[in-house]
């Protein structure tokens, strides 16, 4: 099932000619709007894959050269906000390539990855999408998320943050080739971070 089903009258795929905005009537989409819809659908599908624990399919949403990066977030004075996020090269929460992501998924299938066995119940809510096409054909997209995790009997956590993604079309499908996840937390309040964001 599609998260967003465009009406048949909307041309969501072919961008209107330059300067055509408004001329095709109220239902014509700009290239920007079409991109937005396409990516929105991408992120909704990703959320369902994660929440339905279809992690092998989730892995397919990433390019083979992906960087999956979650920096630390520090308390710094407002005038030093450039230091708030730790740069690549400093200790991060995650700085993974495809191989590490594959290991994490394969680990869960051993039946002995105790942090996730029995598995967490998650709900990924992804919103606030903004997307921008770059000159090299890639797309920069950022989204905000609220992820709820319930584990074992009463453990629960709410993870809030944003993702800044770079996406590239591979064989006609969008794939993430760089994801930066910024959590809205300094000390993580959670026993561990064993779910994907």
């Amino acid at each position: 099932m599609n998260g967003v089903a465009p009406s048949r009258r909307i041309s969501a795929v072919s961008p209107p000619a330059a300067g055509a905005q408004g001329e095709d009537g109220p239902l014509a989409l700009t290239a920007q709007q079409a991109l937005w819809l396409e990516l929105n659908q991408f992120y909704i599908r990703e959320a369902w894959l994660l929440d339905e624990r279809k992690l092998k399919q989730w892995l397919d949403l990433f390019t083979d050269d992906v960087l999956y990066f979650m920096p630390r977030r520090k308390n710094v004075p407002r005038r030093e906000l450039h230091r708030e996020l730790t740069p690549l090269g400093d200790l991060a929460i995650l700085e993974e390539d495809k191989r590490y992501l594959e290991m994490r998924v394969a680990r869960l299938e051993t039946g002995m990855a105790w942090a996730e066995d029995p598995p967490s119940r998650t709900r990924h809510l992804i919103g606030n999408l903004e997307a921008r096409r770059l000159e090299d054909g890639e797309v920069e997209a950022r989204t905000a998320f609220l992820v709820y995790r319930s584990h074992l009997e009463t453990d629960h956590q709410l993870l809030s943050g944003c993702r800044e993604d770079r996406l590239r079309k591979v064989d006609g499908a969008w794939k993430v080739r760089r994801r930066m996840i910024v959590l809205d937390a300094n000390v993580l309040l959670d026993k561990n971070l064993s779910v994907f964001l």
Partner: protein
Amino acid sequence: MAAVREYAVIDPVTGKLDRRIFSDQAVYDDELERIFGRAWLMIGHESLVPAADDFFHTYMGEDPVILTRDGAGRLHALLNMCRHRGNRVCRADDGNAKRFMCSYHGWTYRNDGALDHVPGESEAYYGALDKSALGLVEARVETYAGIVFATWDRNAPDLDAYLGDARWYLDTVFNRRDCGMQALGPMKWLEPVNWKTLVDNCSDNYHVPTSHLSSALVQMRWLGRPRLSHEDQFASPHRHAFVNGHSLTFRDADDGMPRYVHGISKETARLFEEYHRATLPEVERRLGALRARRIQLANHSIFPNGILGLRLALPRGPRKTEFWHFVLVERDMPEELQRAIRIGSQANNGAAGMFEQDDVDNWRQVTEASVSRRARRLPQDLSMGLGHAGPHPDYPGLVSERYISENNQRLFYQRWEEFMNAPDWARIPLAPMTARFDGTATMRG
């Protein structure tokens, strides 16, 4: 004042441990006074405050502390509490500041702790305020190979004696190179566990093949990580040693192989081996041939709450611990190896670490079992290897015959009792130093 309570929680003959020490508020309160109030506590690393006026915010137990380097380069551990009403004077995790101004009424302190400025000193206080008696409270600070320790107790022995012969082992990781080490981090997260479960776990190699098999298996396949099984462990040349509360596991094998760390993979193994060979003459000069060639520190803890190197188990109540994960790399190590260690470390030992995440529910449930009425009456069983440890001709400390043993856990809880029952430092025993510290390395690096 109530009489000092006698704690007898570990039976050294049977290895039975009273599990109420993991959950009782009164025990926890005593721990903060008697252990965290007087032990040398690991609080950071010199490389976190490399320049004059740098600071790094840290903790001693539950007390917030600012580690500063003053304008003259001296280190200070200052209680982050304004002497007026007690507001914090620093809210940043780190930075560079000559002064800390309290955001409540504006009292301002120098980074050596001295109270420098009080608004209305003459008008409101009529010049009667004794500023010199109202500096930020300062702890004693000493360093070992760049790792910064602090204690509130003026009567604590020197850090050298506190670490004692444990340094003989610690040097093989923290004191190898002339260049010293760089600390990165910390990553911080809150675990619903008693702080002692993390420390106890540092010598618990027995849990590794069960708790961490899923991670080991996939890393064996993808990265060429060594196999992990009980059989391998029982045949392992690794051993345990215990000195002054510090638990050490180590490997003694003269095979020219570098110490195993997360980050060694089939791609990087050759580079790690080359680095090991290239630095061996320097390490031999610094640590002597025996330690440079044969002894490799593995999992360990530094009493009370330093775990696996510069990582901290900060108490936050009987059933909460804030875990701080740092990684240390040798400064001159090639960039590629530093990167491998950093990524291996965060991918395995951080909040999202493949190894680390599988530990927490175990520790949590051990902690919880000390709460419910029926369960809390049943002691933990720490009987493994009873009677199979003692002094050893080659290795300092009390050494277990085998790698898989609960000797260090039993001794850790005995050390805990020594601290909890002693009225003052004079009554806390220290093992005499007997190790031969060959080589040029010293406490200072």
